[in-house]
């Protein structure tokens, strides 16, 4: 099956991310093997995935810069926790039909949601937000692919 994303830039990102992430996983597995509390491992892995992605992308994009900034400030953990909380709230909120919003052109409710989703999305214009979102989606996809492969590999061996 041919991988749809075979353009050089995304494969580069994928490789870089895979390298970092695997390294982090290796370190983590050495320190706290699986039987240890899953919750802690889960948080660490999630942060490692996020950080590896941001490092792989580098400071070229605003969203990766935002994440790198959080890493340096050591607030990545909190950020991720709040983010998942916000996402749950968002799911509840978006579950309700919002016809009135749809009727309003772009429905600025959505724009704000998008800003909340994309890291570092608060401080940029809508147009820029869209391009950042596009790149962010590409990277998220690569991340999911790599992590799926890693998981498969772990499970198979």
């Amino acid at each position, binding site marked *: *099956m*041919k*991988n749809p994303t075979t353009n*050089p830039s995304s*494969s*580069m990102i*994928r*490789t*870089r991310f*895979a*390298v*970092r992430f*695997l*390294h982090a*996983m*290796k370190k983590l*597995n050495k320190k706290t*093997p*699986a*039987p240890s509390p*899953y*919750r802690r*491992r*889960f948080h*660490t*892995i*999630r942060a490692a995935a996020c950080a590896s992605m941001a*490092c*792989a992308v580098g400071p070229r994009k605003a969203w990766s810069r935002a994440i790198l900034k959080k890493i340096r400030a050591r607030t990545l953990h909190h950020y991720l926790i709040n983010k998942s909380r916000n996402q749950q709230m*968002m799911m509840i909120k*978006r579950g309700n039909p919002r016809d009135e*919003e*749809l009727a*309003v*052109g*772009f*429905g600025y409710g*959505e*724009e704000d949601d*998008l800003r909340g989703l994309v890291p570092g999305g608060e401080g940029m*214009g*809508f*147009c820029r937000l*869209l*391009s950042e*979102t*596009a790149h962010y*989606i590409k990277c*998220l*996809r690569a991340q*999911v*692919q*790599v*992590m799926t*492969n*890693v*998981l498969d*590999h*772990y499970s198979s*061996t």
Partner: protein
Amino acid sequence: MSGNYANVEPAKGSEDPVNYHEPNMSSDWHVHGNKITTTSIGLVTMCNSMAEPSAHASAPVMDSFGPPIWDQSINGQNSGYCNMNVASTSSSLGAVKVGMGWTPNAMLSEGMFLPTVPGGVPQSLPHFPADSAFIERAARFSCFNGGNFSEIANHFPVSQSLNPHSRGLRPMRGPDEVLGGNGLKAVLGMQSQRHQMHMAEVSNEALIHGERGTEGSPFKNEKESERFMLSHDEAKNGIDVSGNHCDEAEFSGGGAQEELDQECSGKGLDLKKRKRTEQKTENNEAPQPSNETAADIRQKGAQNPSSTSNPGGKHGKQVPQGSEPPKEEYIHIRARRGQATNSHSLAERVRREKISERMKFLQDLVPGCSKVTGKAVMLDEIINYVQSLQRQVEFLSMKLATVNPRMDLNMEGLLAKDILQQRAGLSSSLAFPPDMTMPFPPLHPPQPGLIQGGLPGMGNSSETLQRPMDLQSALARGGFREPTSQHMQAPRVWEDELHNVVHSRFNSSPPPNSQEPTDPLLLGHTKAKP
């Protein structure tokens, strides 16, 4: 958004030209356009940032100021000139100043001077007569600095020094030179009055335009001719007149002036103002004749800018090489038939086009969005998709937390596997030949060769690749347990990726723990290669 016309750049280093305006003006001008915008003058510098999504700003400013566009032609010289104009407007000079400030913008944006009138336009700009002819005059005026001719003339020598400034700066100076050079004063004088008002307004707008104005002439003079909406007959006449003046100025001022003049005339026509004010509407009516004229003039002017723009080394980072104005900063749009052409709507249109273009790109990215129409729904889909991807990552990390890899040494295998699997068509894991345990030393020679396969842009990740070094060695030591049943096709791309991964290893000092060939993968690769 009204571009950042901070033309400040026009302040061109020579500062002198600025001096003549007003003390505050000059200071503003000196600084880079940024200051100018901030100053009361609120001159909008050429919207360098027009290119940016928020470029729409420039349009409104420029509307009223038709002539300033031609400043661009002046670009080198005009910068100084523009400064003058700008300064003048703020001060008692009024329109003249506007022109000055505007010119730098014009020059920068090459015609598309979207003067976004900053809020603080101090000069008491009387209403700009929506008069295309006026625009022309204003353009010329700014070029020649009609009203404040004497002042400008004084600064004339100064403008020379301005050259080093970015293009924007040059234009400013140009007017000085032009003014001093010829006796246009008389002609300008009459026009200057009208221009003053106009220019002041324009300059204000121009200032706002393009913060980077000084850097290069964002305005593409060449292109402006087309875009120039100034199709007014009067404008045309004005241009002709100015053209004549320009000629005179040329002789008197020498080369620098020439450019200015031509640019002025050309620019005046071409003022590529993204946004036109009401005046534009008038121009629209008769765009053809004036446009053509402007185009011609512009052509001449275009050539000049290249020569003039070069001197502005300082700010010239963006200096458009004359003929190719930095488009990236400035986006010129042509009013489409039947569409509103006032500055605001133009900017809006640009913004909307950008947004829709990005939405289309996103539509391709997000699966299942092709049938969705409408921004709101599309945005909803995008949000949902991003959320689902993020949730997937979380879910996967949860699973990874529970999974305990049986072998620590599987990292390299994992990595290789990932890479391979990511490669198109490579579904099998690394098909390392079972004889990975073969003596490694023999592999060393081929390694360099393999490495030369090329590291596609992995330079910056070399340090990250260092880490897999131990992985690689571990892989070699631990033996490759990956299914080797399938032969690795070793596509070129895989090889590249692999090289990328292991390249750092080779580049860096040999891995401390590598007794085996540093690159078991390479080893496998060499074997696998048919």
